[in-house]
Every structure is written in structure tokens, then in C-alpha cells.
């Protein structure tokens, strides 16, 4: 490029630095969010998936009534690696430690610090337990009179999320795990009686896990083993919790980040297009001086390419250190080997190149379009300015007050600018509303969802199926039986089929109007009905996940529910249909604590303190907070860019108004307040956009996380969003008000002179062009 033009690039950037800084920030934030979101999910995925693969995470855990005799034969028949490991719980003064024998085929422990087991008396502990108990590597721990040397910390694939019982929801305070050699475990005199053998199975063929699980279940049943605690990894919280987080992160962050990224590129593309367009007179002049199209294209491409490259690169670089704190916050809940941050080179390249490509392309198209015109046409820039569009022509505003007329005409002056403002505000409002709505929807799920469904707050889950004849349920408690099922042909939509007694009161079972539904019929939860598009009277066909048997039920009622997926049916009919003895149950729901033998239980859920479950929502809160902050930022930048664009495109008008005697406030009122209706319309358009976008996204999330979050719009949040957008608008007006105040009266006068530069008869005015510094000085004096 010609050197002198290169100098002009810097001057153009300096002249409109506010606008270009806004553009760089927008690109920067887009790249930052994209890189951070993909970086977090890739890092977590690498940790979780990498750990699961490398250390052979189980697909299934189960216990049997007697030890499996020929594991090798069963492995061959089922195509699974099966590991029998022993576990023994040791009570401590301020906690409890579960000792596990080390897995060699499945659930192999990974040493995360220190060294592995080498000598008798060595123990590896989970790092959280070490931390809470104040233990350090090299120290000792006494367990039931035996002293162990702490040689390191470890992570075990089937205890990534450490909960004591399989069906527990929250971790038990003071509970941790340790690995000791099989010999050390057997050396506990009580272990022979109290230690439990648990099996972990991992299938060699990594496809069709569900079918292989069913096959293994069949093989074990055929061999006469009675199975308990049969739980696949998808439903085993010890394993599935971080997977769920990755899914949530991916499903929520990636599309939002990508949408935001593309949106910022689009906004900047439009801005650059308008900037290039407004420079038409200069382009025409350079063209007339003999510059080639290629040279001019390259010249005008420099700014957008430079800005997008700087923004993209800065955003990407700034995102790199942002990943670690989020990953660390996840690692605080899970025990995983920290493999460091992982960034996909493709995503990093996309974060830098997509803005360059998109913005470069839009700028290129705009420049080429402008360069199609002749130099003479381009130099008649004022004629272009003087053109009126069809809306302006059609408007008859005689009866309105001047200020109203002026504002309306100001807005319709440029339809693309108006559309840009309306759609930009819509986009920002949409993201803001989406953030709030998602947050509120999750609150609703928490407030009205599974926890609050419990009228009896204590749920005791048994390892093995119980029977009312052998173990009666006390007063104030109810038996339930449940199976994990999926609709025929849709294995991803898992739900619980629950058998409940006809007079059950432990669960709230109300219809959509809030009326109690009969328990003596088949009721389906509304999110499940919605996903399967079922209504009352329809038939649901489904498969028992455990044994692959198919069933069908006619639906009698739809239960108002939030996120939960279940089908309720009468207790006796459930047992009859699934071939279980009369009175069989797996769960007891109780209004009060019951002193069951702990060894019988696979978990207790306590819904007496719903706040305790709020921590599970931390990731959602993080996403919502970042989405909300982003929306506000987008709103600020869009409003700032459009307002600043409007001021720039109206410099002459503003200057003239000042000459005519308009005061600063009056000019602000006329020019800046003219956008108010557009911002208003933009905001309210954001609501249907959000509903459409949200429905698509929620459906997508439901497919990944197997949970349909009901999208619930809270009018209060809508009002807060409205107030927030208008607060941003007011702040932007104040910021731009300063810029407006700086426009001097001399600009209109210089404009008059400026026009004469191409008119030979007016060359006498050239004094002003050869003494630009005088003009600048004048401008500062003319400022009013």
C-alpha cells in the first residue's frame, strides 16, 4: 500500500477512537467468551473423558448375593472386564473413610500426588479427605488400631464425585475414600465380616452399552445370582456428575458463545460497512487521483482486518487465564487428575480467524460495492446525503410537534441504521432475557421441582428389593417401587416408572391446574409428556432398561412438574406388570426418620433442607452471570456504536442547530432521544426472539442432559431487563452527550467550505484547507 495511505489508516483510527475501541471490545469479548467456553469444556472433557478412558471407568456397578464364581468366563460371555473390589468403611472421630482395594482391570486408581502403593501399610487418600482431616503426604493415619502411612493422593474413576451411598444426592460431611492393598484390607479382623464385595464392569465394545448391560444382567440372572445396587454409570452420580456438568457447559455455553461471537462479528461488519460508505467522497477523490481499485480495497480493508485481528487475538489471549479458575472450581467438587488446560487448536484458530474472515468479508463486499461507482458519483457524496428514502417521503407529520417530527425523521433517515439499532437492542435484550429466564427456570425447577414434590421429606432407597410381607412400612411412611425405562426408539429420554399406593400422599401429584390427581391411575409428568408429545388418553410404549422388556400404558393424567421425568402408576399393578412379587418395593418415603439397618440402604435423600441442594446449581449461576454480563456489555456497545454513528452522521445538523441557538440539552433531546422508540421496540422484539431461541436451545439441552427445563418467563425479570436496557441506554446517551457537546459550530461552516474544494469556481476558499490547524483551533473556540 502506498505509504501515505498507511498513515491515513492510523489517523482514521485516532479520529474515531471511541468507535473503534468499542468495535475491538466487541470482537475481544466474542473471542474471549468463545475461547473460554470451549477451553473450559475441552479441558473438563479431557480430564473427565481422558480419565475415564485411561483408567477404565466402569459402565456399571452391582452387587450380588454371593461371590461370582468364574469371572473370566463371565467376562468372555459378556464382553466386559469385571473387577471385584472390596470396600470396608472405617469410622473416625470426625468422619468416615471407605477403604477400597485397588482395581487392576476397571476403576484403576490414578496417583495425583506422592507415589503409589509399594509397601504394606501404605495408603492413598482422596485429596479432599486429606484437606478436611488435615492430613499430609508422609503423615500417618490410624484406622481401627492399625497405622497407615499416607504415601499419596489419588483419584478413582468410580468415585469422581464422592458420595457415600449410590443413591445419595449430596456428599456426606467428613466422608472420604482411601486405597490400600488387598492384603492390608484383609488384615482388618472385622473386614472378613463387614467388608463388601462390589463389582465394576466395563464393556470392551464401546458402542451399545445399554444392550450389553441388559445382556450382562440376563447372564447373571441365568446363573442364579440375585442382583442388588445395579446401576449404570449414567445414573451413578459418583461417575455421572462431572459428565452432566460437561454436557451442561457444552450445551449452554457453546451455542451461546457461538451465537454471541457471530453476532459481534455481524455488528462490527455492519459498522465497518457504514464507516466505509460514509468515506465515499474520499474514496472517489483517491479513485479520481488514479488509485487502483485493488489499492483502495487494500487500504480500506486494513482497518477492519487490523481491528478484528487485534480484538480476536486479544480476546483469545485473555481467555487463556480465565479457564483455570472455572476448572479449579469444578475440581473443588470432583476428584480428577489435573491434566492442565486443554485448548483445541481449531477453536483457537476460529476465535482469531472467524472475526477476521467475517468482518473482512463484509468490509470487502461494502468496499467493492462502493468502488463500482464512478469517481464522479462518489465525489457527489452530498447528493447521496440529500437523498430521501421511501419512508421519509411517505411520512406526513404535519400535525405533530416539531420535536416529534424531527425525531421520527431522524430515525427513518437511515433504514439500515434503524434496523441495526432495533435488531442490536433485540439481540442484547434477547441474551439478557435468556440469562434471566434460564436462571428463573432453574429456580422454578429447584423451588417447584423434585425437592418440593416430596410431601414426606425422607426417602430411603434400598440396595435390594424389599417386600411388605417381610419388612412392613411404619405409619407415616409409604413404599414405592421404581424402574428406569426409556420410550421405544428413544433411548436418550430416560425416565422413572414409579409404582405408588392408591392412597399415597408422600408425593405431590397435581394436574396442570393444581388439582390433585388420583394415584390409582397412570400419570405422566408434564416435561416427559411434552418431550414425547403425549396427552391424556395416549399410550406410552417403553422399555425396562434393566432387562430390555417392553411395556405399554395408557395415560390418564398429566402431572404438573418442572424438569422431572416420570410415570406414576398404581403400586400393585406396577409389581404385577413387571413380574415382581406382590408388595415389592425399592424405596420408602417417610414423614419422619426411620431406623433402618444402614447396610440395607443404598442411599437416603433428605429434602428437609432444600437450600442444601442449591450448590448443585453453581454452574448454572456461573453461566447465567456470565451471559447476563455479556448481554449488558453487548447492549452498551451496540447502543454506544449506533449513537456515536448517529452523532457522526449528524455532525453538520448538530453544528447547525447550535448556530441557530439550540442549547446543548435541546440538541441532545432532539438527536439522542430520537432512538428511544427504537430501543423500546428492540427490547420488546427481544422477548419473542428469546422465546424462539430458548425453545430451540432448551430442546437441545434436553436431548443432551435428559432434562427438559420448563422455560418460565418471570414478568419481574422482564421488567428488570427492561430497566437494565434503558439504564444502559441512558448511560450511553450521557457518554455520547459529551461527544455531541464537543461538536463545534464551525463544523457546519467548514462543511460549507469543504464542499467548495471540488468546485473550481470556489477555489478562493482554499485558505481554509491550507491552514487546517487554524480550522482546528477555531473549532475548539467554537465549542459551545
Amino acid at each position, binding site marked *: 500500500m502506498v505509504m501515505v495511505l498507511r498513515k491515513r489508516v492510523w489517523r482514521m483510527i485516532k479520529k474515531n477512537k471511541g468507535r473503534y475501541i468499542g468495535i475491538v471490545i466487541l470482537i475481544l469479548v466474542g473471542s474471549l467468551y468463545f475461547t473460554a467456553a470451549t477451553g473450559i469444556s475441552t479441558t473438563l472433557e479431557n480430564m473427565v473423558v481422558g480419565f475415564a478412558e485411561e483408567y477404565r471407568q466402569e459402565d456399571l456397578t452391582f452387587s450380588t448375593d454371593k461371590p461370582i464364581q468364574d469371572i473370566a468366563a463371565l467376562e468372555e460371555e459378556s464382553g466386559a472386564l469385571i473387577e471385584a473390589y472390596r470396600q470396608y468403611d472405617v469410622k473416625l472421630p470426625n468422619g468416615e473413610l471407605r477403604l477400597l482395594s485397588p482395581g487392576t482391570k476397571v476403576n484403576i486408581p490414578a496417583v495425583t500426588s506422592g507415589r503409589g502403593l509399594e509397601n504394606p501399610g501404605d495408603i492413598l487418600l482422596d485429596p479432599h479427605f486429606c484437606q478436611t482431616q488435615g492430613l499430609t503426604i508422609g503423615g500417618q493415619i490410624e484406622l481401627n488400631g492399625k497405622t497407615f502411612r499416607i504415601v499419596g493422593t489419588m483419584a478413582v474413576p468410580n468415585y469422581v464425585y464422592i458420595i457415600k451411598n449410590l443413591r445419595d444426592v449430596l456428599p456426606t460431611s467428613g466422608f472420604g475414600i482411601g486405597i490400600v492393598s488387598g492384603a492390608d484390607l484383609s488384615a482388618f479382623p472385622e473386614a472378613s465380616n463387614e467388608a463388601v464385595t462390589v463389582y465394576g464392569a466395563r464393556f470392551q465394545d464401546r458402542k451399545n452399552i445399554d444392550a450389553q448391560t441388559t445382556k450382562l444382567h440376563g447372564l447373571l440372572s441365568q446363573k442364579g445370582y440375585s442382583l442388588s445396587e445395579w446401576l449404570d454409570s449414567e445414573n451413578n452420580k459418583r461417575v455421572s456428575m462431572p459428565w452432566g456438568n460437561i454436557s451442561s457447559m457444552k450445551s449452554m455455553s457453546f451455542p451461546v458463545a457461538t451465537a454471541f461471537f457471530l453476532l459481534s462479528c455481524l455488528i462490527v461488519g455492519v459498522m465497518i460497512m457504514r464507516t466505509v460508505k460514509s468515506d465515499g467522497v474520499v474514496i472517489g477523490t483517491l479513485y479520481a487521483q488514479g488509485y487502483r481499485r485493488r489499492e483502495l480495497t487494500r487500504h480500506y480493508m486494513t482497518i477492519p482486518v487490523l481491528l478484528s485481528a487485534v480484538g480476536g487475538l486479544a480476546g483469545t489471549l485473555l481467555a487463556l487465564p480465565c479457564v483455570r479458575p472455572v476448572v479449579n472450581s469444578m475440581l473443588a467438587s470432583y476428584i480428577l487428575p489435573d491434566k492442565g488446560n486443554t485448548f483445541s487448536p481449531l477453536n483457537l484458530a476460529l476465535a482469531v480467524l472467524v472475526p477476521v474472515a467475517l468482518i473482512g468479508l463484509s468490509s470487502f463486499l461494502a468496499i467493492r460495492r462502493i468502488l463500482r461507482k464512478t469517481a464522479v458519483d462518489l465525489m457527489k457524496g452530498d447528493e447521496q446525503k440529500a437523498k430521501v428514502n421511501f419512508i421519509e417521503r411517505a411520512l406526513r407529520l404535519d400535525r405533530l410537534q416539531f420535536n416529534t417530527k424531527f425525531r421520527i425523521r431522524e430515525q427513518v433517515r437511515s433504514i439500515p441504521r434503524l434496523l441495526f439499532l432495533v435488531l442490536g437492542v433485540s439481540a442484547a435484550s434477547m441474551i439478557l432475557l435468556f440469562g434471566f429466564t434460564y436462571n428463573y427456570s432453574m429456580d422454578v425447577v429447584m423451588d417447584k421441582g423434585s425437592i418440593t414434590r416430596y410431601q414426606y421429606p425422607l426417602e430411603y432407597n434400598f440396595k435390594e428389593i424389599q417386600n411388605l410381607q417381610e419388612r412392613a412400612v411404619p405409619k407415616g411412611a409409604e413404599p414405592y417401587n421404581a424402574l428406569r425405562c426409556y420410550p421405544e426408539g428413544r433411548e436418550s429420554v430416560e425416565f422413572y416408572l414409579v409404582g405408588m399406593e392408591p392412597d399415597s400422599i408422600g408425593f405431590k401429584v397435581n394436574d396442570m391446574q393444581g388439582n390433585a390427581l388420583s394415584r390409582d391411575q397412570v400419570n405422566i409428568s408434564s416435561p416427559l409428556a411434552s418431550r414425547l408429545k403425549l396427552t391424556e388418553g395416549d399410550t406410552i410404549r417403553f422399555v425396562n432398561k434393566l432387562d430390555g422388556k417392553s411395556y405399554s400404558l395408557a395415560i390418564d393424567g398429566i402431572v404438573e412438574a418442572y424438569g422431572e421425568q416420570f410415570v406414576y402408576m398404581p403400586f400393585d399393578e406396577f409389581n404385577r406388570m413387571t413380574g415382581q412379587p406382590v408388595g415389592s418395593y425399592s424405596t420408602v418415603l417417610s414423614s419422619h426418620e426411620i431406623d433402618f439397618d444402614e447396610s440395607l440402604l443404598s442411599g437416603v435423600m433428605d429434602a428437609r433442607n432444600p437450600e442444601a441442594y442449591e450448590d448443585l446449581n453453581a454452574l448454572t449461576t456461573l453461566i447465567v452471570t456470565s451471559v447476563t454480563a455479556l448481554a449488558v456489555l453487548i447492549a452498551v456497545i451496540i447502543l454506544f456504536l449506533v449513537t456515536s454513528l448517529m452523532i457522526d452522521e449528524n455532525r453538520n445538523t448538530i453544528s447547525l442547530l447550535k*448556530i441557530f441557538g439550540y442549547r446543548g440539552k435541546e440538541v441532545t433531546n432532539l438527536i439522542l432521544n430520537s432512538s428511544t422508540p427504537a430501543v423500546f421496540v428492540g427490547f420488546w422484539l427481544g422477548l419473542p426472539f428469546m422465546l424462539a431461541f430458548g425453545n430451540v436451545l432448551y430442546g437441545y439441552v434436553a436431548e443432551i442432559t435428559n432434562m427438559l427445563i420448563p422455560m418460565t418467563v418471570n414478568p419481574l425479570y422482564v421488567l428488570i431487563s427492561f430497566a437494565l436496557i434503558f439504564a444502559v441506554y441512558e448511560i450511553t446517551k450521557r457518554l455520547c452527550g459529551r461527544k455531541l457537546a464537543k461538536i463545534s459550530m*464551525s463544523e457546519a461552516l467548514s462543511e460549507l467550505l469543504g464542499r467548495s474544494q471540488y468546485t473550481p469556481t470556489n477555489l478562493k476558499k482554499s485558505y481554509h484547507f491550507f491552514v487546517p490547524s487554524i480550522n482546528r483551533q477555531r473549532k475548539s473556540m467554537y465549542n459551545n
Partner: protein
Amino acid sequence: MFLSVSNLTKSYHTGIVTHVLKDVDLKMERGQIGVILGPSGSGKSTLMNIIGGVDRADGGTVEVGGERITDFNDNQLVEYRRERVGFVFQFYNLMPNLMVAENIEVVSNISKKPLKTDEVLSAVGLSDKKNRFPRELSGGEQQRVSIARAIVKNPKLLLCDEPTGALDLETSRGVLSLLQKVNAQFGTTILMITHNVAIAGMAHVVFRLRSGEVEEAAHNSEIIPAERIEW
């Protein structure tokens, strides 16, 4: 004396000092038409801007209608421009997105006692074009709108910067004639910048400016009607 400029000085400091106005003296009676003649760089526009209250002098005084505007603060200057002085520009400076009537309302909107838009339009002969956009008008018509916009506030002083600079002879005559009519009909004092010596014939008083100094101030004994001006 309606307009009195005494010892007016103005310089620009840009590394080197440029004296744009050097002790300029200028006086006009109420209701007169004055013309300032001078080549480019003589300081005409600067003088006009200071009189119009859009620029400030370094020294000297400007009195308009008995008020010393050089002592005015910013608010007083705004008030002055709002009520007492009208501007006509060489390139009309109409707002392209406002119709003719709306362009006039831009000024009447902030004036305390404006004339009626229709009355002003009728005075400039554009009653039938009130709902046209500037682009749909000829250059002469656009300048008439500009004059209408300037006089709608019924200013005591009308400042015209090369009002015929962008117009052909016939159209220029029409515009100048209109200015004479405004002067006669509303009693408006008019001060006009031009480099066209022929226009001087229609003025009561003519000031020749050269290098920032008033070289000559002449009073015409005979005022030529604009229609008869030749150049």
C-alpha cells in the same frame, strides 16, 4: 447606531501567529443593508462569525442593538443567536431529511415570537413547496428556504455568507431581490459577505476588507434594485 464594531482584533496561534482581524471598525444603522467585500483570507468570515456570536474576538467590541455582545457569556450568546440574529449560508445548509416547512420550523421551534411558517413561505414565494424535500428544489429555491428559515424568528440582524455564491445570475438576482424585500418588509438589518463587487450596488454601506483591515467604508447615495444588478 445599530451595529458598531470597534477595534476588533482576532489572531490564531498555530506555531506562527496569524492576525486575521486588525483593529476593525464598522458601523451600520438599523434597517441598512451592508456588504463586506474582500478577497479570500481577508477576514470576512471571521468578522461575520464574531458578529453572529459563533466566534469570539481577542480584543475590541461588537455592539448590536445597544448590547455589547463581546461581553456576553456562552448562554447569552446562545440567547442572542436564538432571537436576534439570522444566518443565510452560501450552500443553504438545509437539513435534507426535513421538508421545506420543517426546515423553517427548526428555527421557529426555539424562537419566542416567531413569524408564522406559512407567512414566511409566502414572503419567499414558496407556499406551494412547503411539503417538498430540499433535494426536490432548485438552488435558488433552496436559498429562499434558507432565507425563510433565517427570518422566521424575525431577527433584527441577518448575516448572509455569500448567499449567491452557488447560484447563477438570474437566480442570484431573485435571491438578492428577496433580501431587499425582507429588508424593506421586516426592517431587518442585513450584513452580507461577498467577493462580487456588483452586489455592492444594492447596499447602503460597503466595507472593503484586505488582510484583516477595513480598507474602505463607503456609503452609497443611490441603492440599485437587485433586479438591475449586472455582473
